[in-house]
């Protein structure tokens, strides 16, 4: 419940919409009950008055007023229902949009340190499905519950005014139908609803696996096996949904039975009261009709309660992610960037988690501003980890990393990040145009600047081939561009960002020798007086640097 309460607090900025929706729901529900109740009373009263009139007495019954009221109720029920639907849904979507951007904002400090280990498919599931599941919180839970509470109270009081016994009995039955039945079915359905969320997330992960790894699956004749497995996952989901559906069917049937029993009871009690002269004929009909209509209030509740479990699970999963602590927390009172960009590592040791061994062992290294350093060593020796510590993706377990003599833990994270330009094995391209992909590095870059960047990165020829030039869309992770072209785009970004420290992590890995030469030529060109820290296991590019260090099993030594 704590998780749901947390999200309810996020609803606050939209409270006007939320309250508006609930008021309209309540108005509609009461108008609907009143319409049937008044009609039943009006007909019965008319029948009795008619009998009296035929007997010859004067007609002492003002029929104009109730007839007009009936028409007014009919109209307000119609308008109310429409307004209620529109307003409650508007409110829900506003709330959901707010939660979405809240979630994204919460994630920002968690990358890349904390979240690199999570599956993107899982994250996607959080972002869309889990957040969408939260719509039930207001639309199907909060709104019907508030309406039911106020409505049931109103009906009970109203009935008690005519016949206290019937009022109490009906109130009791409504209470059972609105609280006990949903509670029981909620208990029964909780496991299934939670299972669905987990199963759907698993299905999505495997589906993403299947699509992204399609080539490997086909080439290894594993597609049939994989799709069969996915089919089994689908069956598992459907089976769980089937169980949930059966529960919800039982609860619908049970609620109907309960309402009918209440009706039977009210009918008998009304008949007895009438016989005893406690209730007039017309009022007996009024009571019966009111009971018939009142159960509309509680019909949505059992299913709402079943949603509760699903919603709660989704809420918990979202919070599990957002409550992770960042690997490199923002300081309380961040200091401004120091004047120089001298980098210094003091006896730095690091491990990713307590269960794993040390990746870096007692490393001390000074990189004065403007110097150019390479670190070479076999794969897995900790080179990339060292770079990540310099950029403060992680904080060291022991020792410290200094920029301009200032511990990087005390610097503002965003400002600190602006010091680094990175070129690595993996060039992240976004599903957007090439131009938009370049503008990430410098949103206000002029057309001339873009042209220069394109030229320097050797992208001219590639872009010349494309009919749409810079406005060509590159697909997910840049599928339509080759690895070399993606790297050149990253190179252009590096130029546009114009950061004082260049971090090069195997910058020409996987490139042909021509491209490799181009990349290094470009790097030499604009490295100028910038600091360069390069990690590589190739000899090419070592001409770019002044000092070379060797790294093996987490230990650094001069070369």
């Amino acid at each position, binding site marked *: 419940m704590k998780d749901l309460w947390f999200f309810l607090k996020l609803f606050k900025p939209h409270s006007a919409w939320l309250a508006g929706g609930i008021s309209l729901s309540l108005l509609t529900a009461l108008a609907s009950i009143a319409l049937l109740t008044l009609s039943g009373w009006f007909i019965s009263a008319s029948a009795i008055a008619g009998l009296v009139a035929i007997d010859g007495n004067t*007609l002492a019954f003002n029929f104009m007023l109730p007839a007009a009221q009936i028409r007014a109720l009919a109209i307000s029920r119609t308008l109310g229902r*429409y307004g209620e639907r529109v307003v409650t849904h508007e409110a829900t979507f506003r709330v959901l949009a707010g939660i979405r951007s809240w979630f994204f904002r919460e994630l*920002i400090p968690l990358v890349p340190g904390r979240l690199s280990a999570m599956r993107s498919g899982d994250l996607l599931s959080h972002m869309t499905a889990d957040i969408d599941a939260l719509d039930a919180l207001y639309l199907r839970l909060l709104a019907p519950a508030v309406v039911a509470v106020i409505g049931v109270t109103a009906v009970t009081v109203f009935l008690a005014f005519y016949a206290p016994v019937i009022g109490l009995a009906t109130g009791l039955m409504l209470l059972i139908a609105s609280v006990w039945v949903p509670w029981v079915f909620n208990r029964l359905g909780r496991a299934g609803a939670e299972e669905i969320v987990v199963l759907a997330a698993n299905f999505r992960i495997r589906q993403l696996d299947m699509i992204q790894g*399609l080539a490997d699956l086909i080439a290894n004749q594993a597609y049939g096996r994989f799709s069969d497995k996915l*089919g089994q996952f*689908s069956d598992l989901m459907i089976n769980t949904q089937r169980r949930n559906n059966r529960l919800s069917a039982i609860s619908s049937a049970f609620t109907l039975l309960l309402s009918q029993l209440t009706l039977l009871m009210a009918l008998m009690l009304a008949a007895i009261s009438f016989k005893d002269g406690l209730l007039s004929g017309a009022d007996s009909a009024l009571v019966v009709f009111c009971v018939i209509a009142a159960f509309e209030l509680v019909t949505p509740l059992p299913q709402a309660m079943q949603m509760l479990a699903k919603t709660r699970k989704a809420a918990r999963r979202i919070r599990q992610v957002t409550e992770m602590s960042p690997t490199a927390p923002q300081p309380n009172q961040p200091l401004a960037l120091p004047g120089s960009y001298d980098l210094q590592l003091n006896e730095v040791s690091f491990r990713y988690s307590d269960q794993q061994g040390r990746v870096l062992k007692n490393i001390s290294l000074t990189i004065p501003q403007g110097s150019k350093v390479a670190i070479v060593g076999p*794969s897995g020796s900790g080179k990339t980890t060292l770079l990540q510590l310099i950029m403060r993706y992680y904080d060291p377990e022991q020792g410290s990393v200094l920029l301009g003599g200032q511990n990087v833990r005390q610097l503002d994270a965003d400002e600190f*990040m602006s010091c680094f330009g990175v070129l690595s094995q993996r060039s992240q391209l976004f599903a957007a145009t090439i131009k938009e992909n370049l503008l990430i590095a410098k949103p206000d870059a002029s057309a001339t600047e873009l042209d220069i960047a394109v030229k320097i990165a050797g992208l001219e020829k590639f872009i010349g081939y494309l009919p749409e030039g810079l406005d060509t869309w590159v697909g997910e992770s840049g599928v339509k561009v080759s690895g070399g072209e993606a790297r050149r785009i990253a190179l252009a970004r590096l130029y546009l960002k114009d950061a004082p420290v260049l971090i090069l992590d195997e910058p020409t890995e996987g490139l042909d020798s021509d491209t490799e030469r181009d990349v290094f030529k470009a790097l030499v060109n604009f490295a100028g007086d910038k600091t360069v820290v390069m990690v590589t296991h190739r000899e090419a590019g070592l001409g770019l640097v002044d000092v070379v260090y060797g790294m093996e099993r987490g230990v650094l030594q001069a070369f």
Partner: protein
Amino acid sequence: MQLTETGNQSYFDKNKAREKTCAVWLKAQGKAVRKPILFAAIAGITNGLGVIVQSATLAYILQAVIIDQLPWASLITLFIVLAAVFILRSVCVYLYQIWGFEAGAQVRTSVRQQLFGQFLVLGPAAVKQRQSGELAAVTLEQVDALENYFSRYLPQQMIVGVLPLIMISVVMPVNWVVGLIFLVTGPLVPVFMALVGMGAASANRSQFLAMARMSGYFLDRLQGLSTLKLFGQATQELANIDKIADGFREKTMAVLRIAFLSSAILEFFSAVAVALVAVYVGLGLLGQIYFGPAEHISLSEALFVLLLAPEFFMPLRQLAINYHDRAAALGASDAILTILEQDAEVLEADDNGVGCADEGGASFANDALRTSAAPYGDKINLIDFNKISKSYGKRQVLTDINLHIATGEKIALIGESGAGKTTLLNLLLGFESPTEGRVLLNGQTVNRECAAKAIAWVGQNAYIFHGTIKDNIALADPDAPEQNIIDAAQAAGVAEFSAQLPEGLLTPIGERGYGLSGGQVQRIALARAFLKNADIILLDEPTANLDAANKTLLLDVIDQLFIDKTLIIASHDPEVIHRMDRRIKMQQGRLV
């Protein structure tokens, strides 16, 4: 970064034919589940009949008590009837929901299977054109969105065709004026609903599109969040996320405002009918109206028609709620059909149309069979590229390639990135088909199945699946003997790093497990190739991400293990090129 909107709204507004295609497809899916739909409808209709009996009994009891003031004893039978109807109705409500679900579940299972089949037909090249998050949303959410159309809408449509007619025919003899009110207001409802519903369907499709695009957009931005952060753009991107979410809300509300209008119209008719009936019979009872059977009306008749008035509209109201389900299903089927109808890269079937199902083909993967029964004898595994050209739209990637490779050749495929090496390999693997010319594998036009049997392929970006390292190595042959897997892991250098992991080869990997470096991923992919007993080996940049010592080690293993195989390596590495017998150089899509 700016947000690029795609103008699909206009596409849908113009394209009514598309909606029809979707509706036809939905109907076709429904054919297989006629039975559960019919059963659900029967349960619903029986429930409606119960309502009629219940209303009549209730009205009669009230008349008996209030007007006739009959003794209790005479009413007992009626109370028993009432109780029996209650139970019957509850059972019907239960069965309606159960049968409906089955209809939807069967359709969903079958549509998912169709989609899985289609992904295979389309192949990796075509599937990569779409965002994988978008595609995953289709098989999960969009398919689920079909459920209510079959479980609710179709049964309800049947109920609406039957129940109101029964009610009118019951009410007519009791009071023809009220019957007339029903008769006039009833048919108006579907007319209005259709008018309102048409707009709702097309608006709904664009909502689903918006949702799928949003999923794709989020996945893309989440995957790149660390890059965004590096460029200080993460907070700015938040504005785009907000914009997308806002766009999503506006689109959804546009749909719902219309969808709710149709239920408001019904609400209106239903409320007006109750009011009209109440006022008419009330005034009739008072003797204030002389039209129709008003003068002779009894209280029980009056209450009966009043109770039936809201119930008459109940099936229609339910259908209006479910109309939204229909619109949702139409929207989902549009997304599903877009995939199912997408033209595959059609690979020409060989003249005999057999592919690799025949004996000769089957022997590809099996040495013993090959020597004993293969009709092609020793000349097997000849690869032929005959006048191959390939272009993506205006972009020519391969031009007039003629290439012949004999069994056992060791070939280095060289050329700068973008020269067309990967496309050439894709053609050989059957992932793509040439724009012109034919690729022959063992004398037969290549197709994916044959290629997969004959070729072990290690791509540049090998994909690591969610599972253990062992699962990932044994991708081609999950039943491979344990020792073979260990040998393959050893040969490819996987064992070297897996030994340091807590569970060795059984350590779960993929993005969620231990993060692997590029070199480690490549070694796992190589182990896959070692384990697979194929005749042709295609390696795309196998030594990228490896340092000099490891590279030499690996190349020695490759030489040794693939000594009797046909080996094609695409690489820039001089050491690799040096070790091969034959060099094939490509430049701007041509052989040089």
